[in-house]
């Protein structure tokens, strides 16, 4: 046992204290030589002759010492230290190579570190919800409209809760917003969830202070109590504890705060809302939305009957139950409900894991980015391996000398690997710095609806991953040059005078050719992906939205029922609502630079709600028709958003609350339901009221640019005011709409100082945000593809430059013998052509595999789009040819006689 200690001590000493070990060895050898010389002297030799003899007996002192050192140090520890120092010196001696390699690797490693930190922050971080893995979403489906992600009705929720066995807890939530009014500050808008009392215990969330909802507080008519988020509690009351027991004025009603929940409690809510077939999503608020208020849902089947579908149902799988079992059971419950309640005809159930609902929308983008950065890193590795090989060729002399001095093959291999490691770790440090610097920009670019993107950071685990990645990288690009160094033929190398007379060995040339093919093929893959995404984005941007967003500002509000009563019996006669709308329209129209104003229930990029409808006289047909999007607008809407009137007339001020109800339908609806007939004059009935169709308007893409415009009907807000009081003011100006924001805000304040205004932005901004995830993917992949292309071009240039340099004697002889300069270029370029053709063949077939998993991110273009592929191939061929022709052209310019003389 003790000898292990000696051994470790010796090695540590050898490692930490190199000079003293060398001195010990020196002393030991000197003692030997002195003793040996003393014996010779005793035999009668002179002192000098004796020392000579002793030295002769001893043999090659340095070699013996080196062998002793080998014994004393474990190669993996001390050699690395020594090699590390050596590698550092070597890199300092060839700064050009070092800088090229470090920059290349730093780009690759930095991109990987940044993307990995995003993936870790978004996908891999554990969920803040205790029972996350067992939580499912229970959607309703509708066979008539084909919807698979529809919120549920309250009676359906209560029935599922009573009947389901595979789901042992069910909770429902509804998203809304409330006005917070405080004596000392402007009214503000808070995102709010109405949640049933089962919600927090089911998710596994416990309150930070106070308590959660009690069952009796979740009954219709119970008094209004709220939970608030930790950050709101801190903002308003300094601490969560201080908030409990206080009262907030929400929608002008006093609400007692009974508890405070962690900020992460709203995890996934945005994704749930935007997955729904139709719903107002917080995501369109612009900044990363954050839920601040929780209220009891108080589900009331009386006011929310089976025909309305406003609530999102979450469930927890019973122990041992699988999502498939829950799907089977809820489907059979849905079938029972269909039999029991005629209004449920066509309705089914759809069970999805909550984690899929949250992460499925971002997975394709993140995986794509991960794949892209790995490809970039591979190209970086290939490039550096190529640089190393080129340098290795000029280092054969050094390698030969080192092996002549007794360095073993393993030792040489180790030395080359150490060099790669030193290089990689310098690059990794630079790469991490690069990732850190680019993080802010990356996250600013990231769409706000990516789950918890705000939590992404470069933490210890990301750094650890970067270190491991760097080690793998060093192995990847270092092993080839290291292997080649082991094959140096001592005799021929040492005989050569090192003047570069030799040609690149055929084997080395093959390896480098293969590397060129590999990096070009990888670049083709990435470029195809980028090409497809760019084309998709271009297509998307050139989709006509059906309205003109330029020059329009929107500002949203929700009238509180306390001062703007919505008496359902009097509907549509809501005098307070109508008076507010008229006053705001008049005030807004008077603002400087404003050309048109309108108020609508939803702005043109808000999908809003749909309703079932019938055409009077064709009720039987209507049973199989999908629901129609109903858009309540003020008469000026068409002119404000420049929605074209195709036929008939538009809505006017004469279509007032008391006048005969009228409606407009869009082109899609007219084509679908009135093929061969005249819709104008026909009557359409929804919300129980028949309305005469007076005009046909164009199609607005209210569900986003990538979705086809749905069927839609337009009615006057004065004939169909919003029951919830929600509305949006749209203002068209001849100047910059953003500049109007403050004036609009002030105008609302003058009208109603207690009303919170939110979502103030131009329609262009809203439109641009609706495609932000695609833009994010497109910009990043394009950037990575650009880096890849640049690296590949540099790689090709480097290889051919070296190739030409090595062959300059041969090329000069050809020139001297009368070869045309053009033929010299052709000689080199022909070789390049073969490599490029091979790379294109491999790259394009690989790209077919790579791009198919992009298909969910594409729009208006096939994953195997031949135009893109051809374009990429052409681009790469041109770049590859240029990168190889440049060195060839330079080689053909040299004066052969001078080259040949210089070489001799």
């Amino acid at each position: 046992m003790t000898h292990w200690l000696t051994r470790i001590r010796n090695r540590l000493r050898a490692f930490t204290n190199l000079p003293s070990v060398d001195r010990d060895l020196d002393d030991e050898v000197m003692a030997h030589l002195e003793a040996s010389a003393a014996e010779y002297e005793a035999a009668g030799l002179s002192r000098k002759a004796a020392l000579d003899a002793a030295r002769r007996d001893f043999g090659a002192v340095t070699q013996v010492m080196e062998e002793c050192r080998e014994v004393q140090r474990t190669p993996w520890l001390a050699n690395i230290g020594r090699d590390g120092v050596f590698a550092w010196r070597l890199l300092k001696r060839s700064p050009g190579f070092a800088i090229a390699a470090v920059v290349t690797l730093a780009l690759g490693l930095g991109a990987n570190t940044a993307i990995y930190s995003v993936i870790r922050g978004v996908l891999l971080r554990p969920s803040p919800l205790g029972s996350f893995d067992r939580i499912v979403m229970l959607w309703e489906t509708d066979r008539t409209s084909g919807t698979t992600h529809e919120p549920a009705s309250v009676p359906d929720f209560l029935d599922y809760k009573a009947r389901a066995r595979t789901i042992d807890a069910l909770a429902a939530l509804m998203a809304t917003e409330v006005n917070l009014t405080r004596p000392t500050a402007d009214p503000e808008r808070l995102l709010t969830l109405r949640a049933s009392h089962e919600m927090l215990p089911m998710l596994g969330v416990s309150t930070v202070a106070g308590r959660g909802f009690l069952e009796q507080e979740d009954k219709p008519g119970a008094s209004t109590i709220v939970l608030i988020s930790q950050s709101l509690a801190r903002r308003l009351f300094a601490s969560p504890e201080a908030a409990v027991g206080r009262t907030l004025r929400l929608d002008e009603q006093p609400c007692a705060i009974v508890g405070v929940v962690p900020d992460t409690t709203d995890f996934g809510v945005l994704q749930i809302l935007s997955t729904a077939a139709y719903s107002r999503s917080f995501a369109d608020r612009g900044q990363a939305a954050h839920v601040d208020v929780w209220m009891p849902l108080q589900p009331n089947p009386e006011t929310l009957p089976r025909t309305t579908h406003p609530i999102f149902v979450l469930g927890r799988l019973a122990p041992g139950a699988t999502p498939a079992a829950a799907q089977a059971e809820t489907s059979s419950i849905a079938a029972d409900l269909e039999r029991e309640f005629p209004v449920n005809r066509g309705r089914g159930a759809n069970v999805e894991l909550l984690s899929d609902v949250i992460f499925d929308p971002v997975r394709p983008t993140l995986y794509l980015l991960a794949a892209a950065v790995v490809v970039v890193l591979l190209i970086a590795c290939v490039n550096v391996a190529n640089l190393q090989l080129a340098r290795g060729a000029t280092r054969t002399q050094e390698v030969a000398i080192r092996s002549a001095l007794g360095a073993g093959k393993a030792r040489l291999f180790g030395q080359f690997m150490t060099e790669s490691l030193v290089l990689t770790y310098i690059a990794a440090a630079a790469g991490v710095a690069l990732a850190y610097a680019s993080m802010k920009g990356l996250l600013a670019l990231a769409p706000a609806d990516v789950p918890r993107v705000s939590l992404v950071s470069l933490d210890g685990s990301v750094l650890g991953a970067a270190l491991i990645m760097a080690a793998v990288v060093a192995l990847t690009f270092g092993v080839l040059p290291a292997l080649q160094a082991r094959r140096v033929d001592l005799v021929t190398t040492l005989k050569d005078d090192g003047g570069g007379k030799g040609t690149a060995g055929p084997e080395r040339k093959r390896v480098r050719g293969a590397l060129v093919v590999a990096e070009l093929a990888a670049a083709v893959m990435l470029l195809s992906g980028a090409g497809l995404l760019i084309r998709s984005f271009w297509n998307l941007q050139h989709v006509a939205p059906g309205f003109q967003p330029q020059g329009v500002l929107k500002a949203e509000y929700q009238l509180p029922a306390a001062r703007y009563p919505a008496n359902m019996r009097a509907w549509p006669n809501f005098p307070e609502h109508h008076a507010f709308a008229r006053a705001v329209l008049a005030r807004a129209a008077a603002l400087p630079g404003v050309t048109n104003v309108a108020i609508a229930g939803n702005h043109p990029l808000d999908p809003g709600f749909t309703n079932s409808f019938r055409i009077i006289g064709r009720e039987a047909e209507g049973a199989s028709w999908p629901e129609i999007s109903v858009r309540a607008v003020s008469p000026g809407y068409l002119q404000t958003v420049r929605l074209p009137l195709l036929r008939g007339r538009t809505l006017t001020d004469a279509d007032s609350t008391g006048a005969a109800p009228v409606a407009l339908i869009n082109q899609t609806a007219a084509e679908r339901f009135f093929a061969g007939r005249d819709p104008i004059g026909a009557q359409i009935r929804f919300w129980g009221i028949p309305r005469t169709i007076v005009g046909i308007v164009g199609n607005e893409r209210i569900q986003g640019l990538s979705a086809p415009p749905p069927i839609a009907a337009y009615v006057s807000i004065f004939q169909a005011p919003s029951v919830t009081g929600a509305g949006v003011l749209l203002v068209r100006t001849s100047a910059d709409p953003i500049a109007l924001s403050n004036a609009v805000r002030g105008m609302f304040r003058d009208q109603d100082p207690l009303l919170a205004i939110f979502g103030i932005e131009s329609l262009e901004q809203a439109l641009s945000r609706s495609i932000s995830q695609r833009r994010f993917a497109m910009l990043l992949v394009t950037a990575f593809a650009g880096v890849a292309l640049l690296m590949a071009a540099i790689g090709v240039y480097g290889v051919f430059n070296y190739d030409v340099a090595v062959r300059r004697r041969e090329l000069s002889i050809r020139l001297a013998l009368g070869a045309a300069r053009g033929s010299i270029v052709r000689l080199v370029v022909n070789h390049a052509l073969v490599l490029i053709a091979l790379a294109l063949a491999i790259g394009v077939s690989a790209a077919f595999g790579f791009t198919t998993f992009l298909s969910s991110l594409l729009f208006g273009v096939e994953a195997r789009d031949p135009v893109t592929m051809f374009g990429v191939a052409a681009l790469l061929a041109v770049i590859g040819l240029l990168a190889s022709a440049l060195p060839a052209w330079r080689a053909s310019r040299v004066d052969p006689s001078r080259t040949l003389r210089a070489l001799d």
Partner: protein
Amino acid sequence: MKPIDLVQGTLDLLILKSIGGESLHGWAIARRIRQLSREVLQVQQGSLYPALHRLEDQGLIKATWGVSEQNRRAKFYSLTKAGQKRLDKEAAQWHRLASAITMVVSSA
């Protein structure tokens, strides 16, 4: 008679044996082997020192610094307990091997 080269693998045994009695420095070990073999066995310095370092590394011998007859700082090697055990084992093996080879070679 000219000195003969060592049989492969016997150098360790010879070193262990030569320092069995007292601690010696490198040159003295070589001299001791030469003397004990009556000038027949010649240890190459090139193999002696690496072997010494290897044996030390294996914990079979240990080294202390002392002063040589020439007043030089020198490393003196002596047997460890493990080294003594190894010496006994290898010596026994050598005797068996040597007598076996003798039997074969001297048979008529």
